[in-house]
Every structure is written in structure tokens, then in C-alpha cells.
């Protein structure tokens, strides 16, 4: 494989702060790494841990969760729930064998376009240094799966 590895990073950002911050970066014509895919959610508290796990499962090399600064949440305390979940999620993905640097939590306000640019660029380089996560290949089943009904 001769082509260079380009990390794929999913950014789960809140509607009120970080998405507006990314917008500010864009309208201010700041440049940032094109490796991020932004997914807008209403609040960082809406980021169910399964979103992060699904991103890794489906081929993301990194996941950035970003929302309003604590105390500034549009929904009063949604981001505090993220703040509480995050340490457990960090331990969990490490137990699955995913390097901690592949996931990041940042508070980025609507006025912080420059912070958004900095975080995205820095994380892109960190993940680039780690290399591809390649989850599907590294966890492939060795026995062919049955075409079956799922538990429900």
C-alpha cells in the first residue's frame, strides 16, 4: 500500500456551541484538517456512548466529542452528564484495545473558532501517528457467521 494513511475522525458536536464554533472557523476562512466528519447533535449530553462505539466499529480512527463549556449548557446540565460519562468511556475503550488518544472531549464555545481549528489539527496529527484503527479487520470472526434472526 503506497498511499498515505489519512485518519478519519468523527466529531460529535453540540448544536449551540461547538457547531457554531466550527461555523465561525469556516466563515473566518481558517483552515483545518479535512479529516473530520462533523455530526451535529443538539447537546453533547445527547452523545450516547453507543455513538462512539458505533463510530469506531464502522471505521473511524478517532472520535471527538465537543460541547459547550460546563456551566454554559443550553440545556443547563446536559454537558455535565457527558463530563461524568467520559472517564468510564475512556477506560472502556482502553479495555477494548483502543488507544486513549483516539478519543477526546473538548469544550468549544461559539466564539472559539480558533480553538476548534487547533483541537482538530492536533487530534488529526495524534491519530495519524497512531495509524489506522482498522477495527473490522482486527475483530473479524474466524468462523463464518450464520444468517440468522437477531435477539430481540
Amino acid at each position, binding site marked *: 500500500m503506497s498511499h498515505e494513511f489519512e485518519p478519519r475522525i468523527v466529531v460529535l458536536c453540540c448544536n449551540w456551541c461547538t457547531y457554531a464554533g466550527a461555523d465561525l472557523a469556516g466563515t473566518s476562512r481558517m483552515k483545518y484538517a479535512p479529516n473530520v466528519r462533523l455530526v451535529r447533535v443538539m447537546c453533547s449530553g445527547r452523545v450516547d456512548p453507543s455513538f462512539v462505539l*458505533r463510530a469506531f466499529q464502522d471505521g473511524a480512527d478517532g472520535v471527538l466529542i465537543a460541547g459547550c463549556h460546563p456551566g454554559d449548557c443550553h440545556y443547563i446540565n446536559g454537558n455535565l452528564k457527558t463530563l461524568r460519562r467520559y472517564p468510564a468511556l475512556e477506560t472502556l475503550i482502553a479495555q477494548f484495545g483502543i488507544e486513549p488518544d483516539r478519543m477526546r472531549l473538548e469544550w468549544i464555545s461559539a466564539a472559539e473558532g480558533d480553538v476548534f481549528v487547533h483541537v482538530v489539527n492536533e487530534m488529526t496529527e495524534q491519530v495519524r501517528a497512531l495509524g489506522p484503527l482498522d477495527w473490522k479487520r482486527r475483530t473479524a470472526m474466524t468462523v463464518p457467521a450464520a444468517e440468522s434472526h437477531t435477539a430481540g
Partner: protein
Amino acid sequence: MGEELKAPKKIQLAMYWAASCGGCDMAVLDVNEKILDIAAVADIRLWPIAMDYKYKDIEKWADGEIDVCLFNGAVRNSEQLHLARLLRQKSKVMVAFGSCASFGGIPGLANLHCKKTIFEAVYGYTASTVNPEGTTPQTHTHVPEGDLHIPEFFDDVYSLAQVIPVEYYVPGCPPTPETVMTAVNAIATGNLPPVGSTIGISKAVCDECKRTKSDKPGIVEFHRPQEIFVDAEKCLLEQGLTCMGSATRGGCGSLCPGVNMPCRGCYGPMPNSLDVGADALSAMTSIVDAAEEGDARAKVGKMVDPLGTFYRFTLPVSMLRRAARPLQG
């Protein structure tokens, strides 16, 4: 004469165990005198824990000769895979019986490792291992008397539905006698739910739990059950025990919380859950009493082994399914 006419109508029942502990077979006996009711409606054609049987006898059965096969245990080696496929062929209805067959169960936690690392530990460096020549099991061995074959150990542990099509799931480690009888009655009366159903209720263990829950929970610290005196009335999660009740399917009658033990999650994920670990992580840590990052880290960090807590019975069927194998080249 009546006997002769009735005899062919009896349900042809097979029970088999794979990677399991035998608890599921004991659970069938736990129905006590109702075992006689089961014997009245069913011919037990295969039950290795109770009766001697040879695989060649199973091979002689006609396809579909067995009405219902209750298969317990996960699939972790080639012998179990062979039996799962063979019994699938011989059975009209295949039931994943118990948490191991349904979700991979406790043996499924081996998916945190792979064959290589497991062999390295078991035949290499555990304290009780003396193996200077580094001998590991081989599937084929030649001895003067002939060739010996043992099953191949897989890299993964599988739930039953990951290797063969399964009609129904009976969760539980082990399934409670009530769950067993619900399943048996459904089978005996032909009153079966839609294919793919789980025998259980669609509500969480919390819903069945009698403990009092406060409106403003706030976990101050996570504990293991042996570290505290458990309040017999108050919600276990609010006392800082990692109780899986909120993320786990009910139907067990909330047995463990009823005796001061936090729910372990043996009845598996709720219907339509994407990932039981994500559900549990969200529910448990969102209510930690912390509003600042350092505080949250200190309090949540006290939780021992989140993966083992959240996926104790379900790792092979979880979203990520196993820990990543090392990258090779």
C-alpha cells in the same frame, strides 16, 4: 391403546451443552416436580448431563426429527460448532437456552483475548503451570496406537446465533424456573411467539425491583458489594453499587437486588438496545455527583473493570464484540 396413539404426538426434545458450566441443565431440574409435567409432554431424546449418548446416534436421526432443541452454552471449539450445526439440522426449533448460548455469557469474556494469548497464559506463565517444553494442545497427535484428535480451540467465543440460525432465546444465568416453565409451556401448547423472540418481559429489572428510588440520585462513590453494608431498602445503584438493572431485561423477578446483590445483567440487553454496555455506562455514570472534570474522574475512576461489569454476559454480541487483536503488518 391410548398410550400408543398419544406416543407419536409427544414433543421430541433434545438438550445439549457446549461451552457452559452445567448450570442451565441444573436450572431445568430446578423446576422440581414440574419436571414430571415436562416428561409427560415430551420425550427427552438427548440430555448429556443425565443420559449417555453417542454422537453417531444423533447423526442417525432424520432431519427435523427433533421438535425442539434447548442448546445451552457458547460455541468456542470445533466440536461444539459441529454439534450446533448437527442439532440444527435435526431440529425444527432451535432455542438458545441461557445467557451463554444467547449472548456468549461468561465464557464470552475470553473475547478480550485470543487463542494465542490464552494459550500463552494457560500453558505458559500462570503460577500453577509447569511446562518447560512449552507443550500446547494439538488437534492431531500421532501415537504408536494411532492418531488422536481433539477439537480445535477457536480464536473467538460465539453466541449460538452467530454460528447457526436460532428461533428463540431463553436468557438467564441460569434461566429461572419460571422462565423455564414459560418456555416449556409455550412449546407444549404451540403458543410460540414470533421467531426471533426472547422469552422474558420487555421491561427492565429495575421495573421489577421493589427498592426505593429517589428523585435526585447522586452517586458519591462506586463500591463493590463486599465493601459496604448494603441498605436493604434503598436502590443499590444509589448506594454506589454497579447494578445493571436499568439496562437489563427483566423476567427474573429482580432476584439479585432482592437479596442485596446488584444485578449482573444475565438476562441481557433490553429489546431494541444498541449496546448494553453503552446503556449501562450512560445510566450509571450520568448520575454521579460531580460537576467538574477532576471530581468526575476521581469518582467514576473508582469503578472497577467497566467492561467486565457492563458486558459480563454479553461481550460476543455487543457492538464491538471483542477486544482488538494486535495489528499484524
